[in-house]
């Protein structure tokens, strides 16, 4: 049984659908990466899983349970977590409060998880009383990831975590993602920097125009000349 699975999902914001029958499946051990040209429906796929837009046809399951069009406040306690691409921190709140909000749905003690997150991102520990809006782009991305980890997810979804970051931060983020995955958290992320992302993905999905174009392990896709030609810029 897959951790999360999309079967023939058609979804959109009303009007013409953006996803037209997308299939994706991820295990808990996987780092899944969705790549493809702009407008292919990559981010839309994540939003469809997280109930942020309407799934018109098809099904989304999480550990075998149907979560099609479930609301986020139900999904987070189940173990799903999502880091949006933009506006992914509470700018007027401190780093610490941002993390607390990540653990909002938990009724148990969150201090242990807080320490883990600070251990994972030492930069943040030093700035815990600072407003998130005053941080640099890379630090914000860490706050956003830390917030998403506070709910102790078993599936972490990231929408272009490297967007707008300098190469140093990008590497750091990718390394953290790989490390998080090793603790048993399934990863599903969307990336523009397709090569780097596919290089460490266990599963890659190339979408175009709202449909699956190629699926395989990251290495298979990198080696596929068709993929390289159309989507990796030769």
């Amino acid at each position, binding site marked *: 049984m897959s951790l999360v699975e999309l079967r023939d999902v058609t979804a959109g914001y009303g009007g013409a659908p953006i996803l037209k029958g997308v299939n994706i499946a991820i295990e808990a051990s996987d780092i899944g990466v969705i790549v493809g040209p702009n407008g292919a429906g990559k981010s839309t796929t994540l939003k469809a899983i*997280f109930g*942020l837009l309407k799934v018109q046809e098809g099904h989304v399951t999480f550990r075998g349970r149907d979560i099609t069009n479930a609301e*986020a*406040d139900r*999904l*987070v*306690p189940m173990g799903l977590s*999502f880091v*949006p691409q933009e*506006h*992914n*921190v*509470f*700018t*007027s*709140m401190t780093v610490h*409060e941002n993390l*607390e*909000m*990540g653990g*909002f*749905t938990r009724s148990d003690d969150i201090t242990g998880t807080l320490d883990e997150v600070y251990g994972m991102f030492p930069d943040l520990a030093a700035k815990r009383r600072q407003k998130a809006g005053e941080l640099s782009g890379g630090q914000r991305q860490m706050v956003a990831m830390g*917030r998403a980890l506070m*709910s102790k997810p078993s599936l972490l979804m990231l929408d272009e975590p490297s967007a707008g970051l300098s190469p140093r931060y990008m590497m750091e983020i990718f390394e953290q993602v790989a490390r998080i995955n090793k603790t048993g958290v399934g990863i599903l992320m969307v990336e523009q920097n397709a090569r780097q992302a596919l290089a460490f993905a266990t599963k890659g999905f190339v979408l175009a125009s709202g449909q699956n174009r190629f699926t395989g392990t990251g290495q298979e896709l990198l080696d596929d000349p068709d993929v390289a030609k159309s989507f990796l810029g030769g």
Partner: protein
Amino acid sequence: MNDFIFFFNQVVVNGISLGSVYALGAVGVTLIFGILRFAHFAHGDMMTMGAYIAFVLASLVAGLGLTLPLPTGFVVLPFAMVIATLIALGIDKGFYAPLRARGARPVTLLIASIGVTMMIQGLVRLFGGVQTRSFFETEPKGLIRIELPFEGVTRPISFTEPQLLLVIVTAIAVFALHFFLTRSRLGKAMRAMADNADLAKVSGINTALVIRVTWIIAGSLACLAGTMLALDVSLQPALAFNIVLPIFAAAIVGGLGQSYGAIAGGFLLGFAETLAVFNWAVLLRPFRDSFPDWFEIPANLALVQSEYKLTVAFVILVVVLLVRPTGIFKGASS
């Protein structure tokens, strides 16, 4: 010295009272704007409605013939706030929630709040009548005078009991709100949603619950502000509708969505109004001997005539909108 006490009684006491009412109202407006992203125009009438609820409860209690150490209208306030809160939740469920569910634009909700304003006004006048009433028909309004132990000072510092209570409850409400927003889980969730509603949702925050809490706070603060205003002046159907615009001005001047800004804006406007209509000639009189003979102190040196008191708020509002549209504290944008 007497003249300075006059200044104190006229400006400081009135400024604080008016500022407190504005602040309590503006906090409600700003919270609703922060969470629901629309200008809730019916807020002033929710204040009036709250005052009428308190009035009815006070009449019932007075009918029991109890004598209380504090004004009856003040004692029944907690009960009135509960009722007003329930009504506020009902209004949201009946009139705003369906529009939100449809994804209506904020301006549609603003127009809907005009409809709610009219309904409340109609009902208040229907059941409460159009005449002016007083909470102090059956009991005296306490007056506090503090004689200063200086030589030649004949005029005491004076303010009324409701004014004192108003300042106390405003301070308590502001501190309670501060602790709620910064310390409690739900308060932080509210700030989170005001900051970034989509991300709050993604974090698993129950946004419907936050909206309910917002109405509970806004509704009870509106009832508090309305009742305290009615205790201070008098109760009439147009009580708060007349000050809903200064309240909005206070919220905007403070930066819409900013609770502390709203409090600051409220006091700023309260003082601006009382200072603008104060007759500054009073303060010049003690020095009349030191002026040359040809200089005659004009009888009235008020910056604006008292008829234009309310327009002071709008002038400040318009200037703020022109110079710094996000308010003195940076406001949320919709």
